[in-house]
């Protein structure tokens, strides 16, 4: 049941009504049933995995509190159980395939990748670590804990919620609120626009290059990677907007996951704006425990690099994702090491680095670096990646830039307008300050209606052309 399917809207309507009519004390029951129903609509056979991970982390949380003298053991048990499931189902075939290729044997198994496994596993890990550190008390009510792990708006692709933010909200009383309805509906509409009008229409042009790299020329690779940058942002942030909007209508506030990442001034800034819930997860639960920046410069560089490698692997079990993570690690480390030198050079040249022109320059350079890295992320395999890179550096012909993607004048106009509207929606309806009832811009009924028309026509257009419409991050 995709967020962009009519079935989801009916499902959500029923879930939202139950959320308000069932007494607070028993509200977790219909919400948990709805969340499991939602998950089982994806992979009914694998529901026992989420149940297993939930039960083990729940039990270990209580044991950490009840038997503090052996809390390390309970934490290790919880982390091992959760990570074993993740590693086996997501990474076994990757490692077995890599080893098998070396020894000339097929060691892979026919495994189904459970939807959203990386997201809910990280959520249970953060719970266990927080209880171990004494940051939060262990949750005694299994129903609320299971709902925290499986809450349907953010179950399959985040935001990766923290227990101290979500669990108290699940227990709190929520009354129907017209401000929440208005803000949530606006957010959902912005999300549907980004996903259906921008991401799904852009996907057609991107796939034309990345799914058949042999027939693409060097001129289309950079444009396709820039279009993919737009596609993946609108796909993932669109999903997040729908998730946050759904939760908001029901009275729950999920954390922000994006803050206009392509306006970042450098790679560090980019990661502070992109997939914020994952970046902050890695900072609190991996980078700082590894020593962060407290153990000298060399160790800090190593820690940063480890975090980016793990982040790459988190995104997908393929060498392309590992290289993508490593590339961002290199960007980050080189950026840090050369920072002072670059500032000196700018100073010697008499350039004001805070001027508007320099900000445009820095944004452009950051965007191009990110786009280059997206080629690694989007390539279907390392074989395809080599072809794409060979063409990118080998036969660049700016004259053929647009034609090879099959872009028509109508297509260009649609993309340009959709992109302008998307940036305006981001400025008005999806920023943290717009979460406040008094802070959101007024969306006039006419504007909402036009956006709705656009979503419907784009959806019909994609249906007519056989587009899949699946969210990219669901595979992670």
């Amino acid at each position, binding site marked *: 049941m995709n967020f962009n399917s009519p079935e989801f809207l009916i499902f959500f309507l029923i879930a939202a009504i139950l959320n308000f009519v069932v007494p607070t004390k028993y509200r977790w029951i219909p919400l948990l049933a709805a969340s499991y129903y939602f998950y089982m609509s994806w992979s009914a056979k694998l529901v026992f995995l989420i149940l297993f991970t939930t039960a083990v982390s729940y039990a270990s949380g209580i044991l950490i509190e009840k038997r503090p003298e052996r809390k390390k053991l309970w934490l290790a048990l919880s982390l091992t159980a959760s990570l074993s499931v993740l590693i086996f189902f997501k990474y076994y075939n990757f490692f077995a395939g890599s080893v098998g290729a070396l020894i000339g044997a097929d060691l892979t198994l026919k495994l189904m990748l459970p939807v959203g496994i990386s997201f809910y596993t990280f959520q249970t890990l953060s719970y266990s670590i927080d209880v171990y550190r004494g940051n939060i008390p262990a949750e005694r009510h299994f129903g609320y804990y299971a709902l925290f792990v499986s809450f349907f708006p953010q179950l399959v692709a985040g935001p990766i919620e923290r227990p101290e933010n979500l669990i108290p909200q699940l227990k709190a009383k929520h009354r129907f609120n017209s401000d929440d309805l208005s803000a949530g509906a606006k957010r959902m509409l912005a999300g549907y626009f980004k996903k259906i*009008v921008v991401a799904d229409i852009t996907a057609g042009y991107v796939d034309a290059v990345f799914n058949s790299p042999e027939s693409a020329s060097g001129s289309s690779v950079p444009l396709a990677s820039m279009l993919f940058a737009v596609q993946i942002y609108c796909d993932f942030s669109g999903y997040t907007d729908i998730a946050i909007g759904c939760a908001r209508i029901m009275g729950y506030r999920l954390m922000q996951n994006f803050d206009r990442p392509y306006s970042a001034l450098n790679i560090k800034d980019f990661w502070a704006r992109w997939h914020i819930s994952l970046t902050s997860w890695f900072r609190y639960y991996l980078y700082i425990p590894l020593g962060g920046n407290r153990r000298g410069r060399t160790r800090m560089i190593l820690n940063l690099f480890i975090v980016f490698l793990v982040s790459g692997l988190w995104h997908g079990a393929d060498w392309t994702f590992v290289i993508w993570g490593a590339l961002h690690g290199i960007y980050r480390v080189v950026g840090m090491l050369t920072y002072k030198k670059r500032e000196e050079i700018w100073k010697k040249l008499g350039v004001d680095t805070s001027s508007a022109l320099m900000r445009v320059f820095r944004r452009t350079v950051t965007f191009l670096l990110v786009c280059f890295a997206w080629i690694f992320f989007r390539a279907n395999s390392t074989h395809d990646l080599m072809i794409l890179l060979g063409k990118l550096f080998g036969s660049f012909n700016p004259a053929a830039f647009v034609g090879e993607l099959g872009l*028509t*004048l*109508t*297509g260009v*106009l*649609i993309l340009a*307008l*959709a992109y*302008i*509207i998307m940036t*305006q*929606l981001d*400025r*008005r309806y999806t*920023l943290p*300050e*717009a979460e*406040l009832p*008094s*802070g*959101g*811009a*007024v*969306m*006039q*009924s*006419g*504007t909402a*209606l*036009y*956006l709705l*028309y*656009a979503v419907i*026509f*784009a959806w*019909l*257009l994609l249906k*007519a052309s056989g587009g899949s419409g699946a969210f990219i991050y669901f595979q992670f």
Partner: protein
Amino acid sequence: MDIIFFEQPLIRIAALILIILDLVPRFIGAHIWLTVVNCALHAVLLSYMFLAGGTFEEALLLVLVSSALALVQCPEPRKDGSKK
């Protein structure tokens, strides 16, 4: 390159009127009657476009123009949460 979208003169004129109507609130302010008339005209034009053999792409392009014009006229929230 494809295109000549909106090939029929009647559709071109109607689309032009709609775009002008989208711009009117910028000068005289947003009025509910203007929104109602505008939305009704959009519905009529889109229906006519489909009956006259128009495509989803053309319809999408028209509503995107209207969306963009309508959106840029909405006040933008400031960082402190108040409106401009």
